[in-house]
């Protein structure tokens, strides 16, 4: 905690570009080291993994199982996972289905609208490798060359219990600090 004291007070004749009145800048990475390399990061990860909010985006057949997963019988609310409609309020993007050439620019834009830290989960065979439509002229295969994907859930479509297992695996990954979504 001691190194934080090295701060540049705003001198009256200081005319750098960052000389905004009332702002103190440091040259060390002390605060960010505190947050990322000590046990504070474990605390932050515990908070993040227990409240993963996903964006509802039914794109294909796996979309209807995604809707069924969020409702009675296979409730996700007990894990802290609730659906949000807007990308600006969501943490996890579920690619549930095939991606076509016409939809890919819209998907990239949705991804950029999500604030970080953000994670992607691939559900179903179609997003992993093409699925039953692997030879179509209109689908895009191998999505993991475009997005940084953490968890793959295979199946055509996977049962809702398998998708819940996918979320639990993502939680384990965040706890072990091996996910691709947050910057370590």
């Amino acid at each position: 905690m001691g190194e934080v004291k090295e701060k540049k007070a705003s001198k009256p004749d200081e005319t750098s570009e960052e000389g905004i009145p009332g702002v103190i800048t440091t040259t060390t990475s002390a605060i960010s080291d505190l947050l990322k390399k000590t046990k504070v990061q474990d605390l932050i990860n515990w908070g993040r993994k227990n409240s993963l909010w996903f964006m509802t985006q039914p794109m294909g057949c796996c979309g209807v199982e995604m809707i069924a997963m969020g409702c009675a019988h296979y409730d996700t609310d007990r894990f802290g996972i609730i659906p949000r409609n807007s990308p600006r309020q969501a943490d996890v993007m579920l690619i549930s289905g095939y991606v076509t050439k016409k939809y890919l620019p819209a998907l990239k834009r949705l991804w950029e609208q999500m604030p970080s830290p953000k994670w992607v989960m691939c559900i179903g065979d179609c997003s992993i490798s093409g699925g039953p439509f692997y030879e179509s002229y209109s689908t895009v295969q191998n999505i993991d060359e475009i997005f940084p994907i953490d968890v793959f859930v295979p199946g055509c479509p996977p049962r809702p219990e398998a998708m819940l297992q996918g979320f639990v695996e993502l939680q384990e990954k965040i706890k072990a600090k091996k996910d691709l979504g947050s910057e370590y």
Partner: protein
Amino acid sequence: MEEQLEPNEMIVHLGPQHPMQPGPFRLNLRLKGETVVDADIELGFIHKGIEKILENKTYLQGITIVDRICYLVALVNEECFVGCTEKLLGIKPPERSQYIRVILDELTRIQSHLLGMGEFGEFIGFVSMFMYAIREREEVLGLIDMVTGARVTHSYLKFGGVRDDLPDGFKEKALSVFNNLKKSVDDFEEMFHTDRIFRERTVGVGVLTADVAKNLGVSGPVLRATGVPFDIRKNEPYLVYKDLDFKVCTETAGDCFARVQVRINEIRESIYILEQCLDQIPGGPLFPEGTMYGRRTPVMRVPAGEVFHRVEDPRGEMGMYMISDGSDKPYRVKIRGPYYPTLQALPPLIIGTTVADVASISGSMDGCTSEADR
């Protein structure tokens, strides 16, 4: 649509990802204040090219692909494809298989209508309707799961019959599920009729008359809510529908409330059909006697010819036009989905209404964008 905008007009894109849509399509609205002046639809965000893929697969592999045209009513899509091929082959499945197919078709109709009503509630903000409907739908999906082994995509039908017989204890479990379902459907109807906000948002909204509906080419519950009794199960009966007793449900008002009422009545008629089927189902073989169907037939050549077959989908009239040239792969398959003309008829209906009514009207059409795009 993008001509000179006046000072208080603007264009809004209800883009591919929106909470108000059953699947990705883009609805462009030109608004003057809150009133819609012009509307346009862009499709194709989940176009997979199924018709081209089917030309490269054998008929048996085609059953698995056809399942995925509309994932909510997979068994009815299989019924259409298998019905076309059986007409070209010239075979007819025995009675027990026909009754099993009718049972699965009607169970699919019940769960599709429940999901349609639930999603309509979710689009206009009535989320408790959505939760109740999905809970009842899970019971019906459990019945389908007992027979075919899967919840969404089945691959259960075969040429000349079905893959497996009904399991033991199916009839008792089904009758107990139907008893609970009848009480729940009565509860839903009371929920719709007595909720004041729901009535104000749906009664008198999106009115279609019979002549306009026929001109626009719609079919299914949307047409039956205007008073036209058009049902493929009565016009050209297929399977054993001519031996069963049921009536075609119609209403006369033509607005969103009438379409929901038609769907509730159809759930009750479907339960009545299912009770008759479970009573009347005969014993017997699953495949035609003395033929090779039912055993493993890896190479099956279909005689040359062409056929157009129609079935009654929960959303309307579904048809398939199949051309065969004598080999083991189809030459051309054209899929005519029921939601395609209904979606085309949406822009003329919403011109002149407010943005909040757009949600009501497009939700009451109960669509599945996947079969409009194929």
